[in-house]
């Protein structure tokens, strides 16, 4: 059954990424990316990493995409790029694509034929992550609250209009 779900998610992921690239409207591209992230979340779930799956959906498909869409909506992207620049971007894209392909080939060649042993996955269950997060890594965890409030205050003070402005 898992293999069926895998192909479903994989097809969705690849299809939506293609849609993202092909779509001429940037907002559609962003929404396609949401679908891609969500399918990736499903794939993580199938790999036995539910925490990663949840993070993938909440953070990437949720929070990061909101910022993406916001940026797309805020700045002018309508004009596209000039033909002269387009040549260069195509050349760069082909170059990067070849490097990525080489990387993937190397990675697949180097990967162990047998899936990783069960003990390697032991640390990735959400309960295990919780145990680590709230005991050994308690200090970093609490620091993140300071980080979040610094960002929140910074955003409010820089963006919000003051009274009388």
């Amino acid at each position, binding site marked *: 059954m898992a293999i069926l779900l895998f192909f479903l998610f994989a097809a969705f992921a690849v299809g939506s990424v293609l849609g993202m690239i092909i779509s001429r409207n940037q907002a559609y591209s962003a929404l396609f990316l949401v679908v891609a992230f969500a399918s990736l979340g499903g794939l993580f779930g199938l790999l036995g990493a539910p925490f990663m799956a949840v993070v993938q959906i909440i953070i990437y498909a949720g929070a990061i995409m909101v910022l993406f869409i916001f940026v797309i909506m805020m700045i002018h992207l309508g004009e596209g790029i000039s033909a002269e620049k387009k040549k260069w971007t195509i050349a760069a894209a082909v170059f990067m694509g070849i490097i990525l392909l080489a990387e993937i080939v190397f990675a697949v060649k180097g990967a162990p034929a047998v899936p990783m042993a069960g003990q390697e996955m032991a640390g990735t269950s959400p309960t295990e992550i919780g145990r680590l997060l709230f005991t*050994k*890594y*308690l*200090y*970093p965890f609490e*620091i*993140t609250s*300071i*980080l979040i*409030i*610094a*960002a929140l*205050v*910074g*955003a409010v*003070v*820089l963006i919000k209009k003051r*009274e009388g402005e």
Partner: protein
Amino acid sequence: MNSFGAVVPLLVVVGAALIVFLLEAFLKKENKNYLAYLSLLALIGCGILSANAWNGGLTYFDGMLRLDNAALFLTFLFLIAVAFVILIGMKYISLQDANHGEFYGLLLLALSGLMIMVSSTHFIVIFLGLEVLSVSSYSLAGLKRKDDKSSESAVKYFLMGSFASAFLVFGLAILFGTAQALDIPGLVDFFKAGPDNQVLGVVGLGLVLVGFAFKIAIVPFHMWAPDVYEGAPTPVTAFFSIGPKAAGFAVLIRLLAPYWNAGFRSGKLFGFLWALAALTMLAGNLIALRQNNIKRMFAYSSIAYAGYMLIAVLAGDGAGLLFFLTIYMFMSIGAFGSLIALSRKGREYNELGDFAGVGFKYPWIGAIFAVFLLSLAGFPPTAGFLAKFYVFVAAVNQGLTPLVLIAVLASLISVYYYLRIIVYMYMREPEREVSIEMENPALYLVLFLCLYGVLQLGLFPGNVLYLIKQAVAALL
């Protein structure tokens, strides 16, 4: 010793920051001075608590928080620096259209980030501390919201800072992947143990160093510094010149100190750091020659100073570095404080031409500013001379004579642009009318204390050196 007392100084600072934010949101007073007093009270409280922890070696959170003497010494340094910045900023923010109470709260949060960074040996904690510091700094840089340069400064700092953080995280990921550890002792064991995966480990370490080099503005990762320093509100610039730098170097010596007596000078990264130091000193001082905006000039000067500090790291001279940082704090805040003294409502004088004849019109401010400039240039009997002298001697003793020659050459170059300001102040006819706001007692207090610091440390540095000796003992 495991004790909750290790967290309390940090809690005081963070708690005060939260109270400042809430008071600012609820009371909405036009005069923000009461927030400054509250923040100063918190700083004093934190200082007393930290003083009690001296020699205590308190730890908490499984040793992730480690209040050793080195951390405490740097905490004192940061407390003094932030207190000075608050004092020179009180009048400034209302005069220069940056009248947000958040100024104090964000400064306290930045301080908490600094304290987190210097009081841990675990890279996750150090990274989070750095991010707390950086995120607060980005918004501090943009506090003059109607000023385009201030906004540009915030955006640039944010983009470049995020870029640097990405390098840092990538390096940490590689390090963790190869060494299976992110605490400094664990990493040191890994690198000392053997050749397995060493190459990948060094790549990771290199990326981490690049990330820190961005934050402490070492050439060629310094591009953001001049624009950020120029655009940010001047008290914030004073904070940038000392806070992130000191914390970055603190992490650097924590990381490198275990190697100082174990083949550091033949290691893989030594040549890399050597070249960075030479490049930083020369490029920083040479570009500073061409600057006509004082804040930009100080930005390049602070870049050059990062180069001198790197010599102390290369020479394995922890005490020299801490002494250097202490003195640099007084000089730098004093110099920026003098710039603030030469301003009035809605107008700052930052161009070199503005300073023509200022020395006679405002003799006191001119004289004090001149002392700070002479100290930055490294003239005896000011502390600036002693700081460089100690570091250079230590470097020569370690056989780094070529680097010291470059450093002396760079210092000589720097004399020109520091003295140029003094020449303008005392030997040029005023080109335009300069009038300043005279009534600013808090600022004058800071100028006086910095002047005292620069002269006291230059003539009788014994007490501070004694403390520094105790602080460095914790590192080795």
